[in-house]
């Protein structure tokens, strides 16, 4: 059992982080905390990906000492996927943050529930939807 946990340490941490981030993203009322949750979730996935590629004792996938043997280096694919994922995460975070800025300027609160209440009130005032 203990050895199993030791062998899968990164994976388990990634799973726990994923669930923490996931539940923060879904259930936090505060928009900034939601965004933090989103980032935790993404980081958990990168940790999982990176630990999938990693095999102890091997080198980073950049040519060293002229060795072109596949067993010298770790798998380059997960690293590439993490790179792509980071860019996606940055874009999404920027977009969410700028939406939060706009909402805060308009409604003067970061609480999504309060914002929705205010939105509904506004709609009823206008008589639309």
């Amino acid at each position, binding site marked *: 059992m203990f050895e199993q946990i030791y062998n899968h340490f990164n994976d388990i941490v990634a799973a726990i982080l994923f669930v923490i981030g996931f539940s923060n993203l879904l259930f936090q009322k505060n928009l900034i905390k939601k965004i933090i949750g989103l980032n935790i979730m993404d980081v958990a996935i990168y940790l999982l990906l990176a630990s*999938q590629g990693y095999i102890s004792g091997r080198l980073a996938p950049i040519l060293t000492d002229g060795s072109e043997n596949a067993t010298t280096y770790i798998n380059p694919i997960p690293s590439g996927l993490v790179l792509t994922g980071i860019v996606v995460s940055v874009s999404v975070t920027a977009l969410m943050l700028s939406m939060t800025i706009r909402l805060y300027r308009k409604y003067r609160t970061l609480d999504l529930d309060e914002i929705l209440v205010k939105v509904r009130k506004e709609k009823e005032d206008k008589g639309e939807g």
Partner: protein
Amino acid sequence: MADFNPKEKKILYRAFRITAAILIVMLAAALIFCMFDLPGLFSPDHPGENIVAERYIESGIEETGAVNFVAGMILDYRAFDTFGESNVLFAATICVMVLLLVQDQSKSRVRRKRSKKNGTVNSDQTTVSESQTSFEQLPESKAYYEDLRDEREIEPRLIKNDVILKTIAKFAVPFILMFGVYVILNGHLSPGGGFSGGAIVGSGFILASVAFGFDKMERFLNRKSAGIITFVSLLVYCLAKSYSFFTGANHLESGIPLGTPGAILSSGLILILNICVGFVVACTMYSFFSLMRRGKI
């Protein structure tokens, strides 16, 4: 859906919380179970260690010319993904611009209409008093400019006299920019590449704008120049990759020299693509900051 009384709402909310908690615990259990099933950290017989990874490493240098196998993989073997990735960044920039960009009010539609109505076609006039009167009757999306204007007025005063920041930035910014350029240009040789280097350059720009004010940054990185840089870089990226995809799929020779592995001028398109991505990311990072800070690039 709106007409529940508060008591029912409370009960519903509690039920929702409990269900959610149960689902989250189930998700956690399922994931952790999955993780035990995976090949562990120290096992060399990971399914990922197959012909794919082997070829990326063993023939990567002949086929892509990149010493950094990851750069070779993301910019040559799996270039379509990376092309999509830079488009994600582009799409996000566009959405942030839609959200936060404050146009010159003289150009905006509502503005024009008002001046037409008042009989004054003098659209260049944007004195504060006039725009204040017009805000009351404008649709709500315009009211947001009022908040922004206040912010912009506070901005320069806050950072004007910070000697420590200015002095440190004077020394740090050139080194940051230089390091960023180094990372971009060596993307195919060492860790790094277009995205990381671009982010470093962008952070250098941000530091400069914080220390010396946006006015000085605007001399060389304003909306127009940032737009042109992004556009040209993405266009080069798009056309270069289209050419490479097209020749590859039709089994034509691309005719792009790969150079000697290890030299700066090597690895065919990868260097060019890294530079393009670097430009795009630097401009994007700076414009994210600038848009969030003051609604302009």
